[in-house]
């Protein structure tokens, strides 16, 4: 490594740090200031006791957790199915992954819209079922979108997050030397056992890190629940958005208070990851 002067280091880093740090700090600061504008710090107490926000929080937490959980499970299943192919049929695996990665191009808005087109009561699936005489009436079609369980929302996220996990985990996976797996197989390991004893430890860290990222992303996202959600409870981001732009001063303050708490949650996870990574690396 070359010895760089302190000034040079500073100059090269400054723009990026200024940008990221600046926008973060401005956003966090303004959010907090706006939240206490109306009734000071008591707004947070009111927030916690507010039914609408509480229901919204649990609803959002639920569908985020389930979405991420199912996506991880699905991607692990795919990995289980292909992990031994990686070594002698890599081209085939990468081609297949190419297909599986295709949902990443579609923005969340369009994905949510498609779920709506297919799974709504008047949508494609319902019509197909009707034509096969599985259901007899439009009203019999299960409500899958704009429902209270957020099934449509979960479907959209699973569709988009599974490729995300595959993309994140695959590099870690391809670093496993084939000799390790051959050795495990020679020692009598079944495919399942090898999966749990050899593969999982290698991809554990990446998976956990990606899960946290995905959870926070899902929890704070706006577009999908906006299109596929219901009026009560709303997803947290949707609630905040609507209260902020169409509410009274008090509503706006409470919205910013909720917003601030979410940001704190994000920073908390960030600190936690920093801490865990610090414990783990020898740098």
């Amino acid at each position, binding site marked *: 490594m070359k010895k760089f002067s302190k000034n040079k280091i500073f100059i090269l880093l400054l723009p990026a740090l200024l940008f990221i740090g600046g926008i973060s700090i401005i956003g966090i600061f303004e959010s907090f200031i706006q939240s206490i504008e109306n009734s000071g710090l008591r707004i947070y107490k009111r927030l916690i006791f507010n039914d609408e926000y509480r229901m919204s929080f649990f609803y959002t937490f639920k569908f985020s957790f389930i979405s991420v959980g199912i996506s991880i499970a699905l991607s692990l299943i795919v990995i289980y199915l292909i992990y031994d192919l990686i070594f002698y049929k890599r081209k085939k695996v990468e081609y297949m992954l190419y297909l599986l990665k295709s949902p990443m191009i579609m923005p969340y808005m369009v994905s949510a819209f498609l779920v709506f087109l297919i799974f709504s009561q008047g949508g494609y699936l319902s*019509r197909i079922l009707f034509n096969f005489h599985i259901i007899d009436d439009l009203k019999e079609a299960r409500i899958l979108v704009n429902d209270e369980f957020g099934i449509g929302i979960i479907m959209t996220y699973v569709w988009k997050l599974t*490729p995300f996990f595959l993309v994140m985990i695959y590099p870690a996976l391809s670093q496993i030397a084939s000799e390790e797996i051959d050795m495990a197989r020679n020692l009598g390991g079944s495919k399942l056992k090898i999966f749990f004893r050899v593969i999982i430890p290698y991809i554990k860290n990446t998976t956990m890190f990606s899960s946290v990222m995905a959870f926070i992303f899902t929890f704070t996202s706006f*577009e999908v629940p906006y299109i596929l959600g219901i009026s009560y409870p709303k997803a947290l981001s949707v609630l905040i958005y609507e209260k902020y732009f169409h509410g009274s001063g008090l509503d706006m303050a409470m919205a910013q208070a909720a917003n601030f708490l979410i940001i704190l949650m994000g920073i908390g996870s*960030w600190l936690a990851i920093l801490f865990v*990574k610090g414990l783990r690396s020898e740098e």
Partner: protein
Amino acid sequence: MKNDKFYFGNFILISIGVFFFIPFLILLINSFGTLAEYPNLYLLKFNSDSWKYVFKSELMSDIIQTLNVGILSLILLTLISYPAAYIMVRGSFKGKKIIDAIFMLPIMISPIGIATGVYQAFLKFGISDTLVGVVLGVSFPAYPYVYRAIKIGIESLDYAWEEQISLLGISWINSFILIIPRMILPSILGGWSIGFLVAISQYAVVLILGGGNVMTLLVRMMPYLNGGTESIACVYGIIFMCFSMGILWYMDYFLKKYYHGEI
């Protein structure tokens, strides 16, 4: 026995692949007219009304605006992340871990969370509801991806190359600006692909910071999603995806030519 298992796994994989691919087809089909009343599966009027409507509207200016946002964002991001990535890889100083963590902040703080706060600040600076504000806003979530890609590129560039360059009498500044980017071009393009995609896929940020003045494709599309005009929304969806796939394909093509020494 092994062949059986493989065949079954193959089948599952193919069905998963198909499952992921069908939505694209549905988008295409639905853009050509409205579905007949329930429960028919055929299109009521197979026409291209929606397509004509979209093409007659301000589509061109929307596309240009989207391109503006994307490209300006990439320029900004490259200008700030390249130096940072370089010094983080090549320099030795304390506090690298914290700085790396700061650069990962946009992933933990959702852009919507800070958009409303940032908008207030932009009001004071006079860049609210402008393209500048929007570019700053969409660059924030895209930064980690561009930064990471460039960082990996520099890491994989053997330092011996830079030594050789300086031995040839080329100043560090010239090497930094003119030569090294050329050598890590694939990584830069990779970062650009993801960064561009993230930047133009933002909806809420553009809406909040742009305030209706900056109309990208997705912002234009949203009202049609909730209304009754699904086919128009489908048209916009297809245009958007052709657009993003086109950009990605072009970068891929450029990369291939690079590797064959034609660039």
